[in-house]
């Protein structure tokens, strides 16, 4: 057996560790430090340590935007995920059906949204949703007269629905691919066995397909939940976090990332309080880390699923 001194190993790892420290660790530690100061644009020369004051303001002050923003972000994540799963499952089941003609064509069409750059997609949707001249409302006016108009991006609820639609349109192909892969690995004998046992299509789906697809879905869902939680570009390009309901409240689609951006770099932010925003992002980091940890446990610990996996191997 080749024997290497630990020191040699460390020497070889050192360049990479330095890179990690400078690129990954330093910004995180610096943000952690910032979150305990009152650093802002105008007092960058004489800021000071203020302990956990930023966190107190964030979590316990009455006019804090933290909980409303977090709540609407979580709602967005849940709604999007449910839609991803439903649309992804339906499209995957359809693509998995050998009786459909021109399958390669449909596959390309259904996966196309995934290939389109999200920024451009978002801008196209923004135009589609425009109230006065957007195609959606223009088409509506052909049928319902000049007065017709759905205030897609003007009404808080509709704007929320609009950004859900766009995100689903952009992301469902990922689930289609994942589910399709899982579907195709289901052995044909299972279907036969189920049929002999007298299972109908729904029972087959409920008791054979779904349990076998779920293990593949859980990591995809966790991954998606995190990206959706941190969603920035698509939603920002469409609504900038609006529509505004009041100067004192965050906009109806102002999710965490957009909220932070609007408070630091937004078009006309008065005096960016870097310390406060750092506290905000550290809190979110802790929250996401906890959710991910819980989520990753979910994928491996469900007993009946691992039972299935063992049975198959």
């Amino acid at each position, binding site marked *: 057996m080749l024997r290497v001194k630990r020191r040699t190993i460390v020497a070889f790892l050192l360049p990479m*560790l330095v890179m990690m420290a400078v690129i990954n660790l*330093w910004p995180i530690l610096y943000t952690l430090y910032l979150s305990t100061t009152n650093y802002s*644009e105008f007092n*960058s020369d004489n800021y000071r340590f203020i302990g956990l004051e930023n966190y107190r303001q964030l979590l316990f002050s009455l006019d804090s935007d933290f909980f409303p923003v977090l709540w609407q972000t979580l709602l967005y994540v849940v709604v999007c995920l449910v839609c991803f799963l439903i649309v992804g499952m339906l499209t995957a089941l359809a693509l998995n059906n050998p009786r459909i003609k021109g399958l390669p064509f449909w596959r390309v069409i259904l996966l196309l949204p995934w290939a389109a750059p999200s920024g451009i997609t978002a801008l196209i949707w923004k135009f589609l949703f425009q*109230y006065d001249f957007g195609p959606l409302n223009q088409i509506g006016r052909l049928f319902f007269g000049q007065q017709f108009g759905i205030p897609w991006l003007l009404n808080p609820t509709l704007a929320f629905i609009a950004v859900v639609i766009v995100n689903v349109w952009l992301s469902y192909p990922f689930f289609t691919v994942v589910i399709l892969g899982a579907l195709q690995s289901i052995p044909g004998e299972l279907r036969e066995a189920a049929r002999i046992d007298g299972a109908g299509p729904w029972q087959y789906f409920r008791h054979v397909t779904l349990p076998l697809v779920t293990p593949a879905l859980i990591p995809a869902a966790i991954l998606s939940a995190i990206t959706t939680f941190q969603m920035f570009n698509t939603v920002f390009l469409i609504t900038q976090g609006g529509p505004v309901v*009041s100067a004192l409240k965050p906009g109806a689609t102002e999710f965490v990332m957009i909220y932070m951006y609007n408070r630091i770099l937004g078009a006309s932010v*008065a*005096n960016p309080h870097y310390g406060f925003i750092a506290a905000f992002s550290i809190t979110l980091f802790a929250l996401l880390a906890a959710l991910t940890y819980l989520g990753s446990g979910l994928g491996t610990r469900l007993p009946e699923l691992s039972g299935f996996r063992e049975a198959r191997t």
Partner: protein
Amino acid sequence: MMQKKLIALRTPGSRPLLALMTVIVIMLMLLLAACGSASSSNNSGSIDYSGTIVIWHGWQGAYLQAKQAIFNEYMHLHPKVKIVLVHQDNIASKAATAVKAGNGPDIIAFTDDNLGSLALGHIVVPLDQYISQDDLNQTYSPAAASALVFNGHVYGVPEAVEAITLMYNKSLVSADQLPKTTDDLLAFAKRYQQTHPGQYGVVWPTEDAYFNAPWFYGFGAQYVTPDGKAHLDTPQALQAMEYIASFRPYLPKQPTYDVVSSLFAEGKAAIIINGPWSYADYASGGKINIGFATLPIVNATGTPAKPFVGVKSLWMAKTAKNPALVADLMKFYTNKANQIAMSRADGEIPANSSAADDPAIQALPAVAGYAAQVKLGLALPNTPYMSALWTPVQNALTAVWNGTQTPAKALSDAQAAATKGIAQISS
């Protein structure tokens, strides 16, 4: 076995790592400390006509060419002086970083509303010993002169001014049909829509704080005073907001700048309220025959609507190496002859008042049109507190225009948000 080895590896290995981390942290801190130690020395007296002057600017195209010609002439007069023009985006924030690091420019060219925060951050420094307030008042138009003074100090010179005014499509509306008062304007918008379905009488971005300042200030309200008090909860502000809201049936529901601008460009809107930057887009190729008029008189107060006058300014940065030369260049750049030449070349409205009154300039219809409006406007506030107002005012306008809030509620929320923002600036 494997487990044991891993653990054994980790403990001694962490000591060099820890040392390394400490070194990195110390190095970064030294770097940060170095950033704060830049300083400049002032030497007054006779001017040393030598060295390099770096100007950070946002000029492009015809603007840049016109200005470059003036700087070339200065270099021709003083062969030892070299002027370097550097184009920058986000000038204010970049200058803040660069000047603190000691490698900023000598001159920063930007709009006056950034002066307050740059001056408070010691990014730009006063020029009082070279240019006095009296010099400013004698040479430049009143709004332009006032925009260069902050906390009683002079920080540079104004080069050009701009303000939004009433621009109309001469083939859709004639000069005698133009609304003279705010009530006329509302009636005109209503009438025009009845006679031209699907088109608009007057358009402007109704959710934007800058584009609606004429109404607020015309009705006697103000956004913020230099002492850092927001004034959005006044009865005058409410009147202005209600006036703006009364246009809701006669304008698009989502009147963003792009939407209203293309409506006017396509001939679907008779009047637009817009500024000099838009003129070339509409007029080029003889697409639209544009006429100019000043904004209407507010019926409630009898005073004309007062737009913000944006003052394009040149300030001296803290990193300037030769302040006397910088001041001399600034004076040369904005003297009457050069201002006339610049205006004729790029169509900007000169800040130098004798240049603006010159017949050669008055003969240019666009320049004369905007210049007439500038006289009625007031300088874009250069107090840093103004930056706390843009978003709340815009949010209030949006909430009212969307119909989610009443004018009174929207303004009281905006007042609270602005007060909070101002408190954050001074904290």
